[in-house]
């Protein structure tokens, strides 16, 4: 589907879902602040940073390997909170990045977070390190940093691909407490195998709200919950329609020019 007019029903569905999210954000900003459930890995952040400081070792943050994109920016948002904790402890951060455009954002995020913790002097331009925009060259560099500088806490968040296990295994070997989160489901099992805490799927996008308890972000999370309910309702209604059609011997995938009231709802959703 290239344009809304290819299937207006789908476009309206998407628009409604978006409106629900924005509405919940606005409601939360007006004071209806929800609570959200525990996300295990995130409670470990302070402990991990504290431990790293005691051991005199740095904290590693890797914002994935994509250039500026939604997962990378979300990772940066989470890292802002972690960096504040790092600065409060007086420790320092190493943030290897895999794209030149992310360097600028990384530096600003660390600087802002350190400043808000009252320790702007802790920032050094060697903290954010561009290594390479080639996936495995980047991985070799991060592996080298982990082996040589032995971070005691490692946060792998953002878009990761095959290199996930290289980073997580070397981190594990260096004895770092590792927390990972990625929207790439195919990499989750490798993080689960090698990290101490893994945020599954959507928890990655809930993390910034959880850490900041900011009303706007919490409202957004509730909006997402409602949107999921809308998805489930749509799937249930669609399944009922498909079941009725199926009982008539009609395959939902090959309906052709069939006229039936039961297909109306199904056709709301683009093929």
């Amino acid at each position, binding site marked *: 589907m*290239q*344009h*809304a*007019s290819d299937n207006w029903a789908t*476009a309206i569905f998407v628009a409604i*879902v*978006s409106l629900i*999210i*924005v509405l919940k954000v606005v409601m939360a900003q007006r004071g209806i602040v929800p609570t959200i459930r525990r996300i295990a890995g995130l409670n470990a952040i302070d402990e991990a940073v504290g431990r790293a400081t005691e051991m005199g070792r740095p904290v590693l943050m890797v914002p994935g390997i994509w*250039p500026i994109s*939604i997962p990378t*920016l*979300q990772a*940066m*948002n989470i890292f802002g*909170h972690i960096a504040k904790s790092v600065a409060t402890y007086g420790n320092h951060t190493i943030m290897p990045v895999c*794209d*030149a*455009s992310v*360097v*600028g*954002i990384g530096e*600003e995020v660390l600087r*802002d*977070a350190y400043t808000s913790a009252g320790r702007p002097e802790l920032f050094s*331009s*060697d903290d954010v*390190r*561009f290594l390479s*925009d*080639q*996936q*495995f*060259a980047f*991985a070799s560099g991060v592996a080298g940093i982990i082996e040589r500088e032995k971070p005691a806490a490692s946060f792998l968040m953002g878009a990761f691909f095959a290199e996930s*296990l*290289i980073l*997580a*295994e070397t981190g594990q070997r260096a004895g770092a407490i590792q927390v990972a989160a990625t*929207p790439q*489901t195919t990499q989750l*099992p*490798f993080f*689960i*195998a090698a990290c101490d805490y893994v945020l*599954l*799927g*959507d928890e*990655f*996008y809930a993390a*910034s709200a959880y850490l900041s308890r900011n009303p*706007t*972000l919490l409202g*957004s*999370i509730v*909006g*997402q919950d409602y*949107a*999921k309910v809308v*998805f489930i309702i749509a799937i249930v209604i669609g399944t009922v329609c498909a079941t009725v059609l199926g009982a008539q011997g009609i395959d939902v995938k090959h309906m052709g020019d069939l006229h039936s009231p039961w297909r109306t709802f199904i056709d709301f959703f683009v093929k």
Partner: protein
Amino acid sequence: MQHPINHNFFTAIPQHGAVYWLYVFATVAAGIGVLALLQIIPTRYRKATIALFTFLGGLYYVAEFFLPTEKGTSVNALTEYQPFVGTLSQVIGAFTVGLGVISLVGMHTRSVVRQRAQWGYSACLIVAFLVMTVFHLLDSYYGDHVIIGQGGILRAAITNHDVYNFLFKGGLNSLESAMFALIGFFIISASYRAFRIRSFEASLLMISALVVMLGQVTLGTWLTGGLPTDGPYANFRFENMAQYILLNINTPAQRAVAFGIALGTLATSLRLWLSLERGFYFDQES
């Protein structure tokens, strides 16, 4: 970029004379002037300015999506600018390459100049970086240019392309494959360590991994090879169990995760686009 008159202000100047360069420099100077003017914006309005430009940045794609297409076609008034917007954002993004080079080369140059521990490695990195950059560019312009002629121990002349090939195939390519192959080792230690019946969850993870593994290799087929290939007992052949898990559990589970992530992406995108995002950097007063 079409205009009723053939020659207008924006007509290309194919000759590279003084006029051309005047226009180029004037454009750059005008741009820098605009940047200087931007500095006049008082600090308290800067945040709103950023929000406005972020909104405008996103608006094109949103409008292009929602604007109805002309009858019988799959394009609307905005569709034809899509390649231009794509190219433009790619070109602007490409200018960040310097940020990366400053970060990487800057750090390693400092390490060489101050003779920090292990500065020799930094020097190697800088040399490799320069050699690759130069020969990649030389190869794309003068690939066949001979650097060292035939003779002595050389059976053939060496061209720019040969040096580039040496760096690319001998170096970069094989280092990349080797790094990728490392995962083959790490996956062994990771599965040995992680797949323990420590908890119910860990056991599920282990069992389904084992079944899928056995379903893919001859060892598994051999273990359950005695079972018939048809009929209900065939269901217990490893390859069929693996296929069942991948299709009937993995597909819907991954789809559910994908829905969650899609909604998370939607929410984050909306917050960024409408400048509702909160966090360090994202809502700082400038």
